[in-house]
């Protein structure tokens, strides 16, 4: 079945001749790239099914990986490569545009996980329950679906301004475009793309492989400590477990802890059962008290103590305690760290001990200069400790920097300004607590002032960017209006009078429905609409106040969506966490510091919205490069984007359920899924509740960002703000890519730098993404 649009180009009868061969690559399958009626294959059932299946699988897998390791992977490049494999390889008919539709859908379904896993697990960390039977689960899911739709609806009218007029680069989208075009780009470019992938894999392999671990042998422990693969404490714990296994016995207090933990789980289940007596709750508290009374043993790893109890009762083999999930040390695969490149020896004349300069961790060995994921050039050059100059081993950042080109230098400049000028200056001037060590300056400064100032700069810069682009936005909106009247510029198949974009009418209907859903979710979430507000809206009728909060959140989603799309378009970096932080703060200020559920729910809706907005714009950029009709991409993205939040939320609840069974904790420290990003947001929420937010710094940053945008380039504030807020290691690698681009253009010419640099860098981006997905899959499959 073909779902190609009716106005898709219908060639004259018989105009498609026998299987034409495109260039040197298409292999004489011209007819197979067209539908039975001869129209060019674009939106087809196979592309839709492929996109949904791949997107759903990636979504669930990346949600788990994100909760476990703390970062997510953008799926477009992977979906594009898989699209070739499935649509062109297995089905032997996918066209470039059909594969593009497949990757558009896959990334739309997948992209929402980044927004949800950053926010929703915070509720679990803060002690709220979240299950399929909870009202808040469904309200949050609905809010995220509404957010996804709003993100798409809000960003569609800006396509012309961002892509046609401002010509934002969207490095990863450009890379995906290069992949999609590879079948017709000629053998040489395909080889360059493949070389890029191979180089990326070779570079990233030693950085990624150490994530794969096998259980270490007891004899290996000293060597692993020596190579700084595990800590002495890990080695001691492993030896302790080995001793238990050998003796077939564990200390009584550990066994007792395990017994109590199992009793606690049973008591919790009984207390949560329908119609449970009050005494069930009291029993839970009593057992908790007895666990606390155990003292030191109470701090033992819960799953290990449970396993020890089960082994002592004969419920499992003692040898089964030899498991990394129970705290047994793991032996990582080979990585850069194993090169053993260290600082030179430098000893204190009096104590003969290594100086702090070469041995920051005080383990008696000079520190490693090359770790698995970064190279600390600053320490090699002998820079002061407070100046951070380390490069991430990240081919994707190098490739993204190259594809961004000269404009990316502003990001580099901002990073250098923050990490090599401002932070050391603040440290030297004594503006940091005396207890902050020089080598910890970067981390301290990031949370104390770089982040608020950087986010402020971003906001101010984005505001100025919008003001500067108002004429372009007005023209873009006129274009949409023309599309609504059917008088747009002939699109993909449309010819004159065809419509490029979705018109205002469908956007208003979809947006209106999404807004109503968001308002309803806001009305009934958390404490519900009957509870008085304590924030700025105190005194208002709670139902009205909650509706206002939802409307403010929707307005903020629009603005944040533009910021994120601009950032992604200019640099490939997406400050979602910063926007989520501001949303949560905004809602807590409006509703009161106690209404965490509503704040997190709207934060989640915003995160999902802005990730969908930037993903849609990136997909539209890829579509532009291959000549796809925007309206078709917009339709399939809006039609499928709601699937993502459902999958992510369900995955989180399933993971939390398993964790509760295993360790009595739904998520976070003490479980397999530590949810590092959510922990960061939890710290922010606690900070807001404790009055720690430096609001003025955000405002001052915004003023500087707006003024920066007054000059030649209205996006300057965005770029500088972004770089102050991102880790320096990635900024430097990214900046290196920008510099390489400029050098290549200088030596070989701009056209050569584009023609050969783009496929190579596309390879760098795709290679890392594929390898990271592969490594994560292995890690997850091995448990």
């Amino acid at each position, binding site marked *: 079945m073909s779902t190609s649009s009716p106005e898709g180009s219908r060639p004259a009868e018989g105009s498609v001749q026998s299987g034409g061969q495109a260039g040197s690559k298409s292999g004489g399958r011209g007819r197979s790239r067209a539908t039975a009626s001869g129209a*060019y294959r674009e939106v087809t059932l196979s592309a839709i099914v492929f996109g949904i299946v791949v997107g759903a699988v990636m979504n669930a897998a990346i949600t788990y990986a994100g909760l476990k390791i703390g970062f997510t992977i953008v799926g477009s490049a992977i979906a594009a490569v898989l699209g070739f494999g499935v649509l062109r390889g297995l089905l032997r008919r996918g066209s470039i545009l059909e594969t593009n539709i497949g990757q558009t859908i896959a990334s739309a379904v997948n992209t929402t996980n980044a927004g949800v896993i950053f926010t929703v697990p915070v509720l679990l960390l803060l002690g709220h329950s979240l299950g399929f039977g909870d009202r808040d689960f469904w309200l949050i899911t609905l809010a995220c679906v509404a957010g996804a739709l709003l993100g798409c609806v809000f960003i569609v009218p800006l396509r012309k301004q961002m892509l046609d007029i401002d010509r934002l680069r969207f490095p990863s989208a450009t890379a995906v475009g290069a992949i999609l*075009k590879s079948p017709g780009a000629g053998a040489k470019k395909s080889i360059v793309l493949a070389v890029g992938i191979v180089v990326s894999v070779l570079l990233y392999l030693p950085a990624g492989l150490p994530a794969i671990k096998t259980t270490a042998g007891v004899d290996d422990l000293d060597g692993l400590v020596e190579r700084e693969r595990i800590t002495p404490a890990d080695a001691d714990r492993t030896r302790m477990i080995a001793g238990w296994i050998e003796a077939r016995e564990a200390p009584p207090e550990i066994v007792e802890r395990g017994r109590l933990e199992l009793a606690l789980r049973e008591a919790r289940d009984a207390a949560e059962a329908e119609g449970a007596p009050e005494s069930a709750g009291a029993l839970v508290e009593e057992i908790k008290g007895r666990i606390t009374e155990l003292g030191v043993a109470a701090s033992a790893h819960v799953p290990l103590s449970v396993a020890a109890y089960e082994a002592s009762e004969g419920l499992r083999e003692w040898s089964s305690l030899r498991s990394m999930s129970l705290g047994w040390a793991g032996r990582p695969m080979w990585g850069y760290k194993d090169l053993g490149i260290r600082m030179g020896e430098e000893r204190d004349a009096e104590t003969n001990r290594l100086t702090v300069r070469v041995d920051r961790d005080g383990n008696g060995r000079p520190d490693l200069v090359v770790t698995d994921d970064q190279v600390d050039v600053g320490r090699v050059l002998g820079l002061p400790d407070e100046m951070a100059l380390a490069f991430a081993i990240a081919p994707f950042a190098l490739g993204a920097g190259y594809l961004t080109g000269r404009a990316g230098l502003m990001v580099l400049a901002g990073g250098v300004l923050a990490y090599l000028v401002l932070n050391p200056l603040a440290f030297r001037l004594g503006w940091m607590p005396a*207890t902050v060590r020089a080598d910890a300056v970067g981390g301290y400064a990031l949370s104390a002032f770089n982040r608020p100032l950087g986010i402020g700069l971003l906001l101010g810069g984005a505001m100025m960017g919008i003001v500067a682009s*108002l004429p372009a936005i007005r023209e873009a909106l006129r274009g949409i209006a023309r599309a609504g009247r059917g008088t747009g510029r002939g699109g993909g*198949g449309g010819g004159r009078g065809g419509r490029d974009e979705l018109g205002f009418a469908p956007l208003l209907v979809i947006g209106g429905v999404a807004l109503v859903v968001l308002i309803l979710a806001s009305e009934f979430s958390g404490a519900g609409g009957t509870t008085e507000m304590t924030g700025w809206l105190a005194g208002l009728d709670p139902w009205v106040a909650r509706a206002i909060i939802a409307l403010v959140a929707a307005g903020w989603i629009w603005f944040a969506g533009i910021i994120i799309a601009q950032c992604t378009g200019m640099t490939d970096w997406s400050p979602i966490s910063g926007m989520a932080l501001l949303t949560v703060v905004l809602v807590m200020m409006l509703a009161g510091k106690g209404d965490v559920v509503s704040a997190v729910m709207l934060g989640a809706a915003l995160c999902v919205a802005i990730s969908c907005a930037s993903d849609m714009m990136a997909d539209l950029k890829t579509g532009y490069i291959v000549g796809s009709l925007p309206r078709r991409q917009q339709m399939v993205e809006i039609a499928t984007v709601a699937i993502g939040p459902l999958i992510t939320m369900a995955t989180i609840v399933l993971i939390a359920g398993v964790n509760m069974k295993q360790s009595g904790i739904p998520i976070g420290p003490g479980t397999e899924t530590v949810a590092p990003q959510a922990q960061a947001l939890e710290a922010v929420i606690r900070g807001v509740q404790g009055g720690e937010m430096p609001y003025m710094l955000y405002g001052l940053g915004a003023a500087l960002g707006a003024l920066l945008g007054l000059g030649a380039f209205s996006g300057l504030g965005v770029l500088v703000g972004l770089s102050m807020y991102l880790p320096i290691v990635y900024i430097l690698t990214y900046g290196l890519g920008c510099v390489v681009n400029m050098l290549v253009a200088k030596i070989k010419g701009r056209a050569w730098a584009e023609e050969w640099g783009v496929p190579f860098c596309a390879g760098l981006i795709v290679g890392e993404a594929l390898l990271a997905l592969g490594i994560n899959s292995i890690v997850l499959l091995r448990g």
Partner: protein
Amino acid sequence: MKLGAYLLITICLVVGVVGALTAYLPRLDLPDERLIGLTLNDVAGKRPAAQGGGPIASKNDTITAPLLAELRAAGVGRVRVKEFGFDRWSGWWMFLLGCLGLGGGAVVVKREIRREIAASGQARAEGGAGPEEALSSVLREVAALRQRLGTLPDEQTRLRAIIETLGAAQQGGIASFVAARPVLLGRLGMSGFARLMDVFSAAERQVNRAWSAAADGVEAEATACLERAETLLGEAGAKLSSAASR
């Protein structure tokens, strides 16, 4: 001059940010009444190593007279607090100075860019290639390609011709036209530029689609897109000419 303005912007950004950093870092030599009662947002001070080397005050501690005295005696110059107050913000003048410099730098940069655009217009008038030339070269290539397609013997040759010609146009004329953005912006203003790019981008997308269709071997789609691209490029050229004549 432009380089000087960028330098000014950079320096003023540093000055402004340094000024902003002091917003929550009051100096401890301020009168007691301005400091007592404030809440620390971080640890402060450091005890001698003999006393453990820990901080003198903890986060969330309220500044009291004895604590203030202890911090001053330990040589602590500033502490990070939760409350903001203009009367405690020592770097306000640096922030203001930074803002003024950024504004001034922006004005100079804008003026220099206008001057450069005017100079480039002059150079074009004296025979240099400009956006008009880039646009008409793309239009000529597309038109010539459409004519040539009718003379080519088989589908494979026609598809190869489309891929090669459009590939060259994407790298050549289209890229040159896009690179002329500053010149076009200076000449047409943002609104005029937006109207022009609306048409040009529609044309470019047709070129891209024709390339993809040719790469996939779907000749009918490729030739239909070429026809639309030629029309739209002509429309863009007309818009540019009419804007130039005004």
